[in-house]
């Protein structure tokens, strides 16, 4: 079936308005759900940011899951599978289903236990209190907000590109990006964690269903997976064999490790480690995680791969998923999937903005600017901060500094630098404030220099090595930064003694 958008004139305009109607309508419904949840939300910080620490398994699982429902999963992943083959399923499965689940226990459960005892709301707060250091608290919050910026931007880029693909260019890139920005701001201003968690659950279940319906629809239109495999054999013969010059073992391992550790330090993920109602909720989520990841990633990335076998051509600056759906499913269904993806991205971005605003007000503004700030004023600062942050990421998204994958991996790499110093602090009572500052500071500097300094080719023993390139011999420099952070945190802690205001016993819980 030819895409309606390919037909001329009025038909194309009519189809475009149907698609826009579905997208905007869906976003409005999601907003309404947030409003209902808002009416049930209390006004104190614990309720606003942590939903009163009372999230059950289904909601905690899906609200964490929803952070996977980002432009990185729906658009960047299928694009990569379309361009390079389906091995991306392995990268994301290993990182998210396996490594992240283990960190969920090692970092998440440990933080939950500590949070139960001391009532922490954010990671910087927990570290600042343990090490008696406002500077450390501010550093971790600042670093987190810095790397959150490109990841929020990624959602706006994804939405902009999605509407270009869905409407065949009738809605310009900036229009889609602006649309999601407006909804993001409205949404996060109107609901706290409870609103976000509720819609995350609904979005998660919805997207999980429609992505499988999309798979069934495409497969029945083209004659089943065997027919698509034959097309792949003809169009992209290297796709079906495991591994390629792109998917090298170094690439697979670096990407999986960096993203898995990075994810745990995302403000919106890390804050969820404090919100579980009971340990049982954390255990159930941990167990179900690999299967849930499988259910989302396999269909999403297979669709991208199949598009290559079906000879779909993707216009410059668009994403493969909307184009594929536009080709093989009715306009309203394609629009519904894209609307669902955008709503899910909106809801994920809201979690990010919400957690980001708690870092901003509690860990930067209050300790450094105005310690005696009133709760009312703080709430307005949080919302004002969200508007400013989302507006800046929107403006930055207009410059389109890289592909979705590049922008996303850069952000993950930045967060990953925090993970090992935090793990050392969680498990080694002799960790000192100076060790933490050194480990976090140096690893950030190393990684930042490689992100922002242009690569310089230098001659080392007859071979040319690109200094400040993002990879060395195929290995991501983020791994080196992580190792440096761990070594410095341990080494400097070893060489220094803890100050009298450092309270190692704060992290001693349970079986320690």
């Amino acid at each position, binding site marked *: 079936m030819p895409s309606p958008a390919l037909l001329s004139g009025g038909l194309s305009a009519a189809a475009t308005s149907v698609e826009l109607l579905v997208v905007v309508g869906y976003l409005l419904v999601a907003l309404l759900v947030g409003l209902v949840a808002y009416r049930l939300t209390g006004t104190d910080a614990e309720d606003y940011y942590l939903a009163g620490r009372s999230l059950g398994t289904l909601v905690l699982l899906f609200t964490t899951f929803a952070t996977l429902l980002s432009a990185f999963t729906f658009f960047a992943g299928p694009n990569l599978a379309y361009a390079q083959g389906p091995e991306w399923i392995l990268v994301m499965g290993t990182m998210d289903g396996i490594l992240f689940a283990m960190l969920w*226990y090692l970092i998440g459960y440990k933080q939950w236990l500590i949070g139960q005892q001391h009532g922490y709301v954010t990671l910087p707060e927990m570290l600042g209190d343990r090490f008696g250091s406002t500077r450390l608290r501010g550093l971790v919050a600042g670093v987190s907000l810095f790397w959150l910026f490109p990841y929020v931007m990624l959602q706006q880029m994804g939405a902009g590109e999605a509407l270009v693909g869905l409407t065949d260019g009738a809605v310009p890139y900036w229009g889609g990006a602006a649309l999601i920005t407006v909804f993001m701001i409205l949404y996060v201003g109107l609901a706290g964690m409870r609103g976000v968690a509720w819609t995350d659950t609904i979005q998660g279940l919805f997207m999980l269903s429609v992505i499988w319906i999309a798979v069934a629809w495409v497969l029945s239109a083209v004659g089943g997976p065997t027919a*698509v*495999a034959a097309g792949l054999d003809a169009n992209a013969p290297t796709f079906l064999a495991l591994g390629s010059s792109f998917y090298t073992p170094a690439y697979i391992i670096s990407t999986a490790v960096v993203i898995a550790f990075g994810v745990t330090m995302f403000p919106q993920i890390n804050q969820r480690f404090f919100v579980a109602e009971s340990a049982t909720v954390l255990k159930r989520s*941990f167990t179900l995680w690999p299967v849930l990841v499988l259910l989302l990633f396999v269909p999403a990335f297979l669709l991208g791969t199949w598009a290559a076998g079906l000879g779909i051509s993707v216009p410059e600056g668009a994403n493969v998923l909307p184009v594929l759906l536009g080709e093989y499913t009715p306009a309203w269904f394609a629009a519904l999937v894209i609307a669902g993806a955008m709503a899910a991205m909106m809801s994920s971005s809201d979690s990010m903005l919400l957690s980001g605003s708690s870092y901003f007000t509690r860990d930067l503004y209050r300790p450094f600017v105005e310690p005696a700030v009133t709760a009312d004023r703080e709430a307005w600062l949080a919302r004002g901060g969200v508007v400013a942050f989302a507006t800046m990421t929107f403006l930055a998204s207009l410059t389109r500094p890289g592909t979705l994958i590049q922008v996303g991996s850069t952000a993950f790499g930045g967060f990953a630098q925090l993970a090992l110093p935090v793990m050392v602090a969680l498990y080694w009572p002799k960790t000192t404030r100076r060790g933490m500052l050194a480990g976090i500071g140096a690893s950030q500097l190393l990684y930042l220099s490689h992100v922002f300094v242009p690569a310089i080719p230098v001659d080392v023993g007859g071979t040319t090595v690109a200094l400040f390139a993002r990879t060395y011999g195929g290995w991501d420099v983020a791994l080196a930064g992580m190792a440096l952070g761990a070594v410095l945190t341990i080494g400097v802690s070893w060489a220094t003694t803890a100050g009298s205001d450092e309270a190692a016993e704060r992290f001693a819980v349970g*079986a320690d």
Partner: protein
Amino acid sequence: MDASIRAAGWLLTFVIIVAGAVPWFFWGNSQLIGGLPLWLWWHIGWMVVASAVFAAFTRHGWERYLGGVDA
């Protein structure tokens, strides 16, 4: 069972779970089953196994290493 042997057992199990998520021994293999690569089926099966192992860990290992709320 000796506590350190038990801990080493869990550690080894988790290392195997991580290492096997990518079927390295199928490198370059392009055999298809039902239109999907064999290596993808391995990964799908492996994730289900991982889920089962995680379930066992929550019953027999979870509190043992980090403690529980009442500890």
